């Protein structure tokens, strides 16, 4: 059966590399690449199979049974899965290939391959899952891979703390996910999609008093609660505000990882989750609104921060945050197909951009600061041109994939009513910013005079074929994905899809025009500011000092968390330990012991060694007994 092999091959390569990597060393790619490429081909088969209308869902083995709880590991293959399979395997194989060159000669070469193989496996299992628990299991598994890969260079303190941060922030999201999961099981008695979705309507009316235990009264629809709780998981995984803080730090990991995990696949799992659970979300407008607004806010925040970052990867990272905001917003507005569509195109061009950054960084010997780049377009032609294509797609330049997907997304959003329209306006503004910062990136990095460290300036050259090839392929894809008709392919998945009503009416045309205009305007602005007169940025920075600082410091979110959560927790822990555990509880225990010993010292004083005291003691004892009998 082809389905099993798709995840199985990466798993096998992971096991081989994990157990014998010690001996395989730098032959690792010979194991990893073929495996994932084959699973890419298999998923292509599956894709066309599904397009032929064949959908299936079947268990593999029973994972756990307890009382009425019955959970099995299984696959469910439908259009959504097929698309995701394709995306994951494609990007993964390209990244595999790219890694050959990028990680060449690294000590952890084999280890790295084993990790990404494990990641690919987990991601595939995630998207193929046919029940929420399996989804959750691999949801955490991909988180683990991300943790391991961010911390790949464990000698770097920054990398380690980034890894830890990523995991813990995700755990916060998963906390909600877990509760949502339990609530689903509680109210549906099952975790399988095909059990839940049909019965979603039945429990549409159910309400639950969430303040009950605290004496208050606040009846919330159970479905809404479920959706919101599950969405917290998505917030964590897809780096939505307020849990977006881990993603930029995650850039400490090797660049291929940023491309694979933190741009194309894992971070989009949140979007996938919402889309996958569309039948539930559709029944809960409130939850939808929450999702949409979260997405909108994230979209804007990400963009504003991206404007001023100087670390080349961080710029791309924040643009990822912002783009994820788009997708989530779309899903929140019910435009699942549009969201997924953008997810796909974004996967292509964002992976491209990251890999481009990667080759720049390699070329400059791990230099990541934009301000020490510039004038690279002649030295790195391939990288440059592919990078430009990626940026155009990101900026939504006409006829690139990004153009179609973003346009489709905004149009569908607009057509969903007032909330959608407000968010659409925000989206249009964000388009402007997006175009601006993406081309700021291009111009500062590749154009203008070179600020490259003179040591390396001499021998900056295009990286090896294994790295440029994926760039070119991805560049092609970031154009091509616009013409594959993904929305039409996904359409049937989401019956209440607003995407259907997208491409007619004046609004659609208007939005398209405005969006394109915004994009072009942004590009032009970037050109004006960073090419024509490079002095301007500093002037702006000086004029709007506070704004500039705020954006540069990512709206001080990290600092806020550090002050309000992290430090208080640790100090509280220490205090609690010193005060309560050592002093109070253990103090009480030792106190009892001391008290008894003290009693011993006291009582032994009676034993004075004076015989007549002893006699007196006896006499007194007798007296006491007499008295006792006298009065009882």
């Amino acid at each position, binding site marked *: 059966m082809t389905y099993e092999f798709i995840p199985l091959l990466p798993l096998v390569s992971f096991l081989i590399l994990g157990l014998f990597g010690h001996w395989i060393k730098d032959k690792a790619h010979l194991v990893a690449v073929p495996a994932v490429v084959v699973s890419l081909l298999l998923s292509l088969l599956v894709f066309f199979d599904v397009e032929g209308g064949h959908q299936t869902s079947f268990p593999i083995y029973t994972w756990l049974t307890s009382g009425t709880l019955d959970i099995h590991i299984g696959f469910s293959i439908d259009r959504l899965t097929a698309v995701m399979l394709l995306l994951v395997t494609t990007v993964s194989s390209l990244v595999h290939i790219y890694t050959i060159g990028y990680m060449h000669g690294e000590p952890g070469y084999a280890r790295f391959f084993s990790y990404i193989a494990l990641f690919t496996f987990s991601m595939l299992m995630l998207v193929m899952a046919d029940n929420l628990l399996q989804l959750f299991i691999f949801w955490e598994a991909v988180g683990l891979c991300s943790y391991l890969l961010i911390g790949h260079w464990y000698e770097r303190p920054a990398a380690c703390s980034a890894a830890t941060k990523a995991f813990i922030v995700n755990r916060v999201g998963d906390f909600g996910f877990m509760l949502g999961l339990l609530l689903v099981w509680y109210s549906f008695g099952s975790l399988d999609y095909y059990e839940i979705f049909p019965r979603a309507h039945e429990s549409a009316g159910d309400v639950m008093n969430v303040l009950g235990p605290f004496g208050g009264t606040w009846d919330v629809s159970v479905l809404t609660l479920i959706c919101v709780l599950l969405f917290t998981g998505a917030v964590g995984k897809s780096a939505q505000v307020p849990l977006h803080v881990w993603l930029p730090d995650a850039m400490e990991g090797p660049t291929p990882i940023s491309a694979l995990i933190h741009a194309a696949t894992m971070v989009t799992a949140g979007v996938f989750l919402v889309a996958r659970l569309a039948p539930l979300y559709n029944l809960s407008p409130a939850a939808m609104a929450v999702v949409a607004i979260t997405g909108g806010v994230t979209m804007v925040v990400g963009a504003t921060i991206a404007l001023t970052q100087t670390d080349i990867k961080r710029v791309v990272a924040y643009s990822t945050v912002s783009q994820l905001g788009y997708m989530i917003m779309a899903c929140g507005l019910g435009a699942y197909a549009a969201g997924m569509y953008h997810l796909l195109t974004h996967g292509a061009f964002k992976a491209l951009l990251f890999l481009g950054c990667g080759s720049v960084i390699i070329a400059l010997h791990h230099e990541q600061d934009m301000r020490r780049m510039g004038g690279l377009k002649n030295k790195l032609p391939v990288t440059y041109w592919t990078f430009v294509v990626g940026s155009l797609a990101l900026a939504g330049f006409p006829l690139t994939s990004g153009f179609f997907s973003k346009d489709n997304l905004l149009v569908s959003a607009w057509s969903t009513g007032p909330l959608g329209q407000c968010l659409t306006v925000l989206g249009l503004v964000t388009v402007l910013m997006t175009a601006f910062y993406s081309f700021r990136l291009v111009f500062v990095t590749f154009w203008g005079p070179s600020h490259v460290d003179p040591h390396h300036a001499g021998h900056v050259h295009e990286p090896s074929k294994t790295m440029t090839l994926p760039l070119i392929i991805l560049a092609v894809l970031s154009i091509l994905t616009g013409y594959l008709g993904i929305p039409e392919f996904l359409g049937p998945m989401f019956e209440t899809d607003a995407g259907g009503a997208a491409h007619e009416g004046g609004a659609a045309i208007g939005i398209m025009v405005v969006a394109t205009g915004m994009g072009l305007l942004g590009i032009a602005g970037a050109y004006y500011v960073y090419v024509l007169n490079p002095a301007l940025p500093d002037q702006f920075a000086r004029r709007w000092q506070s704004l500039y600082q705020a954006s540069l410091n990512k709206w001080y979110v990290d600092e806020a968390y550090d002050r309000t959560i992290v430090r208080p927790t640790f100090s509280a822990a220490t205090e609690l330990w010193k005060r309560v555990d050592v002093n109070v509880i253990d103090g009480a225990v030792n106190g009892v*012991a001391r008290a*008894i*010993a003290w*009693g*011993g*010292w006291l*009582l*032994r004083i*009676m*034993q004075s*060694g004076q*015989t007549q*005291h*002893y*006699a007196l*003691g*006896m006499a*007194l*004892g*007798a007296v*006491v*007994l*007499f008295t*006792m*009998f006298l009065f*009882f």
Partner: protein
Amino acid sequence: MILYGADLLALLPELIVVVTACLVIALDPVTPASRRDLLAWLSVGALALCLGLTGGQISVLNVRVSAFSDLVVIDAYARFWKILLYGVTGLTILMSLPYLKAERVHLGEYYGFILLALSGMMVMVSGVDLLTIYLGTELMSLSLYVMTGLNRSKPRSLEAAAKYFVLGSFSSGILLYGISLLYGLAGSTKLALIAGAIGTRGADDPLVLIATILVAVGFGFKLAAVPFHMWTPDVYQGAPTSVTAFLAVAAKAASFAAFMRVFVEGLGGLKADWSLLFLLISLVTLVLGNVVAIVQTNIKRMLAYSSIAHAGYALIGFVAAGRAVGASGGTPGLASVMIYLSIYSFMTLGAFAVIGMLRKGGIEGEEIEDFTGLAKRQPLAAFLMLVFMASLTGLPLSAGFIGKLYVFMAAVEAGLTWLAVIALIFAVVSAYYYMRVVMVMYMRDPNPSSVASPRLVTSPALSFVLACAVAGVILFGLFPNPLVSFALQSVLTLK
């Protein structure tokens, strides 16, 4: 004319003991110092003979035979205690051999006195007339006074003897006064008649109450029950270790035997009163014994307090017998006391045997600190001590647990659960000081700088004693059935 043949036959063991005692004392002057061991072996042989006889009687006459015009009886109850007493006395003699030699007070009379004390105890346990019980007590006590002061070269030994003597005679005076009142009550000193008189006169007679309390005080002294215990630590510490062991084991057992007979057979009608009285006493006893033992540094003194505490535990069983309700009556309680004391005897003897072995330089190493690192130098001895300590704590797989189990079962059955709880809480306290000995032996390393690091004097006899003690502790811990059933059927003759 009455023919005493049968009576003499019944009292053959007593006769043997006494004759041997006189023989030993007579032979002592004519035996050279180097051959004095023979006297010890002679005594042990006599005891073995008695053991055989009394053991034989079990099967022969399983009824209550009264001899010498109902002044003494030979019943299962008495036989239980006698057998126990033979055993512990024999072991004490064997453990005295090397000890006295090391202490340079290896006197032949010593064995004579042990035997005389034993004969006194035998009279106590088989006496059913306050007169015989009193005389037995005195015979025992006088011998013990002398034995305590035996090691005159040590001022402590002498002081202990003086204190023991003064307080002992004081308490026996009190006891005697109580007895005189009981006589005035019943016109006789026979327990049966006293019981009858109490039955007719009822409990709220001033004579009865005063007499009961005075007798209780007198016996409380012998049992080392708080607040009549205060002689115990000093005497136990001062007396030669072998004598201490004899005091702590044999004297206590015999006193308990007589005590229970007097209060059950004689004053049984006053159950309600004395069970309350002894409830109070047992509580105070086990609390004080355990708590004060914690702060001791001298192991003999510590064991003295622990023996006080154990008396408290045994008394719980007795109180339970007094409070007992339902079909089983007081039997389980009384039996539990017998079981507890027999087990207690073995573990205490063993502990004292180990202490007696330990010598620091010329003198006896009796500070707890002297045991430091014993496990390194003498693993076997340390292990034995560990077993005895665990048993004294009452940990399972050792006999101590069985003893506590039965006592507390009796208590719970009598509805004294709260008493059992308190007793167990203080058993935890006791665990502290017992385990401290283990700690010192096993967990502290002997510091090489110490001038005279304690060594062990051992001998075949002593090894035999230890073997018996540890065998008793382990076997009664694993297979208590024989002991339990023996106690249960012996106690039935007590009425």
